[in-house]
């Protein structure tokens, strides 16, 4: 290796940037060339000299600032939903509390309305019981009456049917409920409730045309003695 090549590589030699072969070649030249050796020593002494320069550590305040930034960043990350909800607009706390109360009140009201509606529906949907069950009742109850009702059906045809009406004791929401049953002449069951005015309402004639809501007027009551 000649002086030109060596001078190019002296810095790399001092900085440990040469591979073993290059290092050997440069060092060999430095043994035999005093000019290049002088340059190497000059560079080496400069590196040593620069190490004299020491700077003071940063102020302790910097440590606090950096750690505070870390804590702040990760604290805000933990409550990410707050950023999502309140990131773009700010809701004052009293307004938020008011909205919350209104929402709860609305829910409570809806629940109460639903409760009343469900009671009405259950009242208007009497269960169908077979006639066979009626004779099965004990004589002591004596709640079975026989009534003759006039039921207007399809094509204004008046059909008179004898149905059995049984008062049924039930809860307070169903106190006016009466089940009406009939299977006369092998007709299918139908049921109804009796309103306070003496009319049957919500008569459901299953399989007995028309099976729509109709009203039926009691035209004759048959006492137990007359049966």
């Amino acid at each position, binding site marked *: 290796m000649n002086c030109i090549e060596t001078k190019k590589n002296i810095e790399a030699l001092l*900085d440990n940037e040469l591979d073993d072969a290059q290092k050997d070649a440069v060092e060999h030249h430095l043994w035999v060339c005093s000019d290049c*050796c002088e340059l190497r020593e000059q560079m080496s002494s400069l590196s040593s000299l620069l190490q004299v320069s020491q700077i003071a550590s940063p102020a302790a305040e910097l440590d606090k*600032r950096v750690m505070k930034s870390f804590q702040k960043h990760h604290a805000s990350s933990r409550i990410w939903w707050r950023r999502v909800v309140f990131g773009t607009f700010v809701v004052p706390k009293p307004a938020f509390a008011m909205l919350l109360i209104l929402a709860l009140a609305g829910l409570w009201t809806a629940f109460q309305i639903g409760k009343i509606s469900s009671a009405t529906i259950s009242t208007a949907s009497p269960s169908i019981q077979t006639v066979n069950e009626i004779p099965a009742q004990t004589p002591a109850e004596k709640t079975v009456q026989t009534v003759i009702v006039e039921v207007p059906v399809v094509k204004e045809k008046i059909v008179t049917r004898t149905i059995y009406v049984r008062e049924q004791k039930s809860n307070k929401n169903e106190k006016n409920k009466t089940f009406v049953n009939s299977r006369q002449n092998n007709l299918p069951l139908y049921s109804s409730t009796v309103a306070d005015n003496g009319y049957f309402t919500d008569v459901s004639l299953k399989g007995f045309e028309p099976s729509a809501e109709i009203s039926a007027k009691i035209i004759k009551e048959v006492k137990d003695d007359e049966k």
Partner: protein
Amino acid sequence: MNPNTEANLVEKVAQGDEIAFDEIYHLYRNRVYGFIYRMTVNQAVAEDITHEVFVVLIENPKRYFTERGSLLTFLCAVARNRVMNHLRRKHNADVGFDDFENFDVLEDETKSNPLTDLLNQELAERIDVCIAALPPLQREVIILREFQELSYEEIANVTEAELGAVKARLYRARQTLAKQLAAYATSPKDKCYELH
């Protein structure tokens, strides 16, 4: 530090592990601050930029890739960008960024009597003045090599420069410093004459 260890620590930092961040911070704080301080020669600015550098790590830890070098290289690269922005703003009125390579070197003011500057403190001050007087592009490579002890390749990564450019800037910086600090250096001739 082992790159895998650094990657694990950075992963923990991303998950909010304060102990891991504390370890990284105290490991690299002085080196990052030292680089910035030597570049800006202003303690307040150096502290602000050091803070910003670590905030980048806090907020965007995923920006660090093990394949692209050590964590120190990453931190120095972030610091370097901010330092250059600072210097650009500072010198914008006088010189453009392209002139950084040909920055005017301060004249040697204490060449007169080296005997009066024997104290290390004074020598250190002198060295700081000489380094601060280097053009920014030369200054950064000499600091990264001599004080941060980065390899040429790492310096090239930090400064986003070619390897050849790094070597050339380093050479010019050393020549300038050797000239300015010649009075304080031991005579190289003596050692060489001893050898030959």
